[in-house]
């Protein structure tokens, strides 16, 4: 993305477009990546509920893949995941491994 020069800025750093957080991708901050093990998922959607960002996609009321553009790797989803018979549906793995 081309960065803005000083002539293109709004006066006083006012942000004029509402809802622009969607353009601010925070996935590059991540040290640990959550991975979804679909076979252990009971579709409780706790992960969607607890995610502090917008990193969990839901399609037709069902859990879909992570949106890694916004996942900071906080691990709340993995912690809250009840899994199936003691097997977690979300596990954290080190980024780059």
């Amino acid at each position, binding site marked *: 993305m081309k*960065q*803005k*020069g*000083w*002539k293109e*800025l*709004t*006066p*006083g*750093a*006012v*942000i*004029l477009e*509402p809802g622009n957080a969607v353009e601010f991708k925070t996935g590059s901050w991540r040290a640990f990546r959550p991975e979804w093990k679909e076979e252990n998922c009971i579709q409780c959607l706790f992960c969607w509920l607890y995610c502090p960002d917008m990193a969990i996609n839901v399609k037709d009321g069902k859990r879909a893949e992570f949106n890694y553009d916004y996942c900071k790797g906080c691990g709340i989803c993995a912690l809250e995941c009840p899994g199936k018979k003691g097997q977690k549906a979300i596990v954290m793995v080190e980024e780059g491994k």
Partner: protein
Amino acid sequence: MARVVAVTGNEASAEALRQINPDVCAAYPITPQTDLMQRFSGFVSDGKVDTEVILVESEHSAMSACIGASAAGGRVVTATSSQGLALMWEMLFIAAGMRLPVVMPLVNRALSAPLNIHGDHSDSMGARDSGWIQLYSENAQEAYDNTIQAFRIAEHMDIRLPVMVCFDGFIISHSIERVEYLEDTEVKNFVGEYKQLYPLLDIDNPKSYGPLILPDLYMEYKRAQHEVMTKVKDVVLDVASEFKKLSKREYGLFEAYRLDDADIALVILSSAAGTAKDVIDEFRGRGIKAGLLKPRLFRPFPYEEVADTLKKVRAISVMDRADSFGGYGPLFMEISSALLHIKERPLLINKIYGLGGRDFLPGHAEMVLNELMEIVETGKFKTIKEYIGVRE
């Protein structure tokens, strides 16, 4: 038709605010400003203006309230002095950085310690790098006129920056002078309707103020802020020429008093310039070519124009009613920077005078002018920076 009255600087400034009728005013009292906001609050209580006055618990809150109200889309004022301005310090930068056209009469007073309530420029000089436009006034009339013009400058669509209207504590704020008031309708028409720019209360178009800007953009924002400052001079001159049509009173970036052919000159801000002018006249009467430059717009500083006006003078004393400890006086630093690029520049000395309200007497100006005459004759000076009117 103008009304001629006998009023103090604070009264004149409060009257200007009454005629302008701003939307919001955050008020916190501090000597010698107290009387200004008290008089304005009186107008509010008597229903003479429909300003919403916010009584805050400190100057930090006063400036914060102004920032909020201005971002919301209002025409906003407050006023302060000395420690009050110092307490506003971090919010001053925010008002300027967010480009909010707040107007603030600043009744100049010395900074503590030791505690002192009298006229001195150490407060406004401390805030000179905050991004506020600064106008200085010689007397109550100029305080009144500058307050009215400040709204036009601050709210100009090319500018949108806060403006400080400085006048000397007690010397101007509490002394009764002859002042010519404009008619209410004249002021109302001159200042005009307030035009909002990105008001927060426009809820159909939501927006955010005060984002975090990291190294990838911060410098671009500061560069843009500097650019705005370069446009201020022209706006100040335009507003002044329009004001002249209304009032017959002339304002510029500075006042050049008997400078056309001057060999020696003083550069002096605010009320002390009046005293110095009398002494200049006396020297002129004796055939000595003396002159005076009184800056009005201190931030942004009109370097080129000042240099052009002073370049033919042979020796200049820059008079500072504030000090920069371990440095030259703040006004001296500006004047020497302005003259830096001139090949045959005047010899410059710096006198610190009148701190904490110490009287600046005609004898002081006389003494300095005599020293300048000696410098012209010999081509040499003894010391660059010196305190005057101080006991050994």
